[in-house]
């Protein structure tokens, strides 16, 4: 019955629009996704997406939009460029409540025990925490900002497989 699925749910005191903007904006780095820059020709089903470093030199995540229904539902496939694991699907759901927004991340098709699965499960907690703080307090928690700073310093050590040259939007993944 194990369906290789994981679910993460958090309550955020804020508006659906604010949460939606944090996860879909392309005009500035997305702090909740490890300060990556979302590169796409337009979010709609079938569109390619890339999560690139702020400098644009490296690409950590590649995928394709599966569902795009603002401001309540967004799903995309994703694969880490540094691992050779099969892609999985991430779904973000935003549900309006009297007291704010219920935000749910569902990960489908994770291969148990792979590096990707470990990164995704650890990553989901980071995303939720950072997002909650961004929407409620207007800034990322200190621990997340430390991670961003380290990311900037360590960027140069990224393996060749992550180089953005290998991952143009024209390449179907």
């Amino acid at each position, binding site marked *: *019955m*194990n*369906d*290789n*699925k*994981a*679910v*993460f*749910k*958090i*309550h955020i005191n804020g508006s659906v629009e604010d949460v939606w903007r944090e996860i879909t904006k392309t005009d500035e780095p997305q702090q909740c996704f490890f300060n990556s820059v979302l590169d796409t020709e337009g979010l709609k089903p079938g569109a390619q997406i890339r999560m690139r470093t702020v400098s644009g030199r490296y690409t950590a995540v590649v995928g394709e939009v599966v569902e795009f229904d603002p401001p309540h539902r967004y799903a995309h496939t994703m694969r880490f460029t540094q691992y050779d694991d099969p892609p999985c699907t991430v779904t973000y759901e935003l549900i309006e409540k009297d007291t704010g927004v219920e935000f*749910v991340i569902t990960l489908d098709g994770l291969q148990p025990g792979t590096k990707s699965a470990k990164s995704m499960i650890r990553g989901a*907690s980071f995303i*939720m*925490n950072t997002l909650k703080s961004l929407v409620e307090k207007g800034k990322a928690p200190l*621990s997340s900002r430390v991670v961003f700073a380290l990311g900037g310093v360590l960027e140069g050590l990224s393996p060749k497989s992550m180089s953005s040259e290998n991952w143009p939007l024209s390449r179907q993944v």
Partner: protein
Amino acid sequence: MKPDSMDAVFRALASETRRRILDIVKDQPGRNVNGVCTFFDMSRIAVMKHLRILEAADLIVSEKKGRSRRLYFNAVPLQMIYDRWTTEYSVFWAERLTDIKYRLESRRAKKTRKKK
């Protein structure tokens, strides 16, 4: 996390049965209610009551799939409790200590099994 939602988490965790339900669901994400019931010697209604308390605390998230309800463990409320009281420094030392405890205890458990 608001004080009352943290209360709900602690209340949900203050029961060995509910903690076991979390173990069961975590080990096999997507298990349905019947799958959980097989582990317990109590009525389905009693299990459902525990599940409702766990869901109210967001420790379990359920999803309807056809006629059955699939259950998933949600670690976020625990992460938030953890974040509230631990710092980089305390994590370092607390992890060292729990590591030692788990290692010694599993070694002792192995020894006693051998003696038998």
